[in-house]
């Protein structure tokens, strides 16, 4: 944890000051250890409750989109007043703890037990490198982004273990589908943030956030998302993130209308809750990384809003992205597995590669004359939009709204 900059407002430095107050007196080796433990505790605490309330928010927002109130029956334990269902997550938590954990007779006991543990472990690992505030990054790594996606890539191993260990036709089919989907969306996910590293020149997350400091004309922040290649990269990243965390248009593995609950069919009780927690942690981590790479991490969008502490900005952006995930889940149906993989290989990967070329053109044109600075906007926009339309038309070749005749 780098030393706190003295010039910031008090609220900004509050968390670091608090931590130094607590561990200030410890001798050197023990202090870093305790600091790390505090960071781990904080992450698990905050993201654990955030996970609980996101499940509630998801059901409430889905409810409101469908013109119904969403869960509002669970009373607060002792004062048993129904407060808009705010205690629903705790009710779900207790339910998942008390539900019987059935393991099928001829399941592969070891793998069946290991799958949720591995999945959760890998998705929690990814929280280590996301900068939550001005100097609130748990681990300062030089190759932080690579570490993030290395930990993320191992989740498919755990999904396979879950599918294979349950010895059930449905979960076997779902394990195959999940693997096909995760592998084919890993490529666009990785390719979409390569332009950011190209421009920022570093793999360390804090350096990337610093690269997005400052404002142009006083109010447009230098975030990567406000550049043509950045916006394209952001969209590809978010679509691939949707697929990686098995969210709505891409939730074929647990397609409830076809394969019951996919690779989760034979899980119940707390292991099922662990799978859910791992999925939500994956979603939170990916949106955290999207914020860091494209939305200027913990930076405030306008200069005069600087007084709001940086971690609140990060939280706000995170909740906005989560709302986006839920909104998409409320609207879109599910893609079939072959359409899903065709969409990845024939649309997202080429676009990501073109976006890479687009960034190179952008950076070459950026250090020349002012005219070129202006010209690079339409040029780069065209470089990415034209293939988008062409590939789009090729992808949806035989698919179009039809005109109907009447007899």
């Amino acid at each position, binding site marked *: 944890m780098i030393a706190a900059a003295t010039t910031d407002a008090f609220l900004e430095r509050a968390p670091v000051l608090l931590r130094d107050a607590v561990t200030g007196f410890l001798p050197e080796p023990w202090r870093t250890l305790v600091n790390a433990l505090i960071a781990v505790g904080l992450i698990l605490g905050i993201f654990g409750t955030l996970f609980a309330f996101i499940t509630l928010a998801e059901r409430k927002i889905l409810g409101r989109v469908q013109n119904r109130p969403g869960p509002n029956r669970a009373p607060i334990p002792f004062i048993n007043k129904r407060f808009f269902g705010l205690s629903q997550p705790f009710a779900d938590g207790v339910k998942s703890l008390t539900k019987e954990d059935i393991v099928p007779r001829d399941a592969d006991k070891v793998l069946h037990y290991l799958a949720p543990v591995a999945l959760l472990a890998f998705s929690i690992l990814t929280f280590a490198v996301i900068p939550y505030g001005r100097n609130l990054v748990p681990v300062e790594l030089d190759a932080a982004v690579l570490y993030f996606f290395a930990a993320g890539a191992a989740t498919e191993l755990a999904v396979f273990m879950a599918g294979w260990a349950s010895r059930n*036709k449905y979960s076997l089919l779902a394990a195959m589908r999940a693997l096909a989907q995760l592998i084919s969306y890993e490529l666009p996910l990785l390719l979409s943030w390569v332009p950011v590293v190209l421009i920022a020149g570093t793999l360390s997350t804090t350096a990337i956030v610093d690269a997005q400091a400052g404002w142009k004309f006083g109010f447009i922040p230098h975030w990567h998302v406000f550049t043509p290649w950045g916006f394209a990269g952001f969209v590809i990243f978010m679509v691939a993130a949707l697929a990686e965390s098995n969210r709505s248009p891409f939730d074929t593995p647990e397609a409830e209308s076809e394969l019951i609950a996919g690779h989760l069919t034979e899980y119940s009780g707390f292991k099922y809750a662990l799978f859910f927690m791992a999925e939500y942690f994956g979603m939170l981590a990916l949106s955290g990384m999207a914020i860091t790479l494209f939305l200027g991490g913990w930076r405030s969008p306008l200069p005069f809003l600087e007084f709001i502490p940086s971690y609140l900005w990060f939280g706000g952006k995170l909740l906005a992205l989560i709302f986006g995930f839920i909104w998409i889940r409320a609207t879109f149906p599910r893609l079939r597995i072959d359409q899903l993989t065709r969409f990845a290989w024939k649309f997202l990967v080429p676009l990501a590669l073109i976006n890479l070329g687009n960034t190179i053109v952008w950076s070459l044109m950026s250090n020349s004359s002012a005219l070129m600075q202006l010209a690079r906007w339409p040029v780069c926009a065209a470089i990415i939009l034209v293939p988008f339309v062409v590939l789009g038309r090729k992808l949806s070749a035989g698919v179009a709204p039809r005109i109907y005749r*009447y007899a």
Partner: protein
Amino acid sequence: MSISDLSPLGAQGGSHVRAVHDEFHGDLLEVSMGPHHPSTHGVFRMIVTLDGETIVKLKPVFGYLHRNHEKLGENTSYLGSMPYTDRLDYLCSMTNNWAYAIAVEKLAGQPVPERAEYVRVILAEITRLLNHTCLAGFLMQDLGCSGTPLMYAFREREKILDLFESLSGSRMMCNYQRFGGCRVDPSADWLEGAKQLTDGYGQFLDEFEALLTGNEIIMARTQGTGVLSPELAVAAGVTGPMLRATGVNYDLRKTDAYGVYPRFDFRVPLGAHGDVYDRYMVRVLEMRESIKILQQALAGIPAGPIMDPKAKLRGFRPKAGEAYGRIEGPKGEIGFYLVSDGSPNPYRYRVRAPSFINLTILEDMCLGQTVADAVIILGSVDIVLGEVDR
């Protein structure tokens, strides 16, 4: 072992599939989808033989909801069977009642007053709106939308069910029509409520279509899936929107011209490809036509008796003989074949259920498709198990 000898109707089957069997394909996986399955619309089971993801054989299994409705019909009086017809296709009780009433009126030669015919057309078209809206909701639920279109459909369905409840006393089990007219005369403000419903329905359909019809994912999933050829559809006795989606122009409201349908001008939408998207779109366009019929019927409903004065309620004994009456129900041609021997109970009481016969070619549509497609093909056939199993 090629496909054709697997499904006995291979030679005559529609979309014929030839799968090369070699070691790479591995052995076939037999999966039983149902009767407890989230998307089989009730207790319906499909034994699906899979080669990887593609379906090689699909055998539907019925009978889980079989109550022997026809034996019940033979042991109860003509009037006593009327409440049981509500439980055939429990989404559209009004059209079931009308089909049974039309068959008995044909059997006994019972005239029906003008106002009752208008009320029957109004209720049948409202039931068509209800059924097609629910079908769109269930189909989108099978496609994977997490409940949003279904909840919009149910919000509109509630308004319709309130209308039925204030008229017949019960939301779904209306038991409203009698031989020779209807049981209760709709009041003026009921007709006003029906007029408000139809006027507001067009706006709901616009919003519903904005959400669904142009959606690329839905178009990609449903266009080209479960194609049904017109010849096979006609040969297999498929009726209703499924038949019209293949382009065959056959709507009983136009061909049989029963009731007072000839007085209203409305058009019959026809599909061109016979796939799941066409079946969805034909039903949505039919809803817009139903709104037109409703507006004309509500405007032109005459005064007069709702029940033919000479109609006998209890000691109803039609002369010996037989009759087959049918109407264009929302799911297809629903018909009743009655054989009477002069006693108060029918000698033979047969229900021609559209869902049951439309399932004949489920296997032909699903061959070669994936498991995910089989679910939406079944959804697009629009079956209700009460009617399939009787």
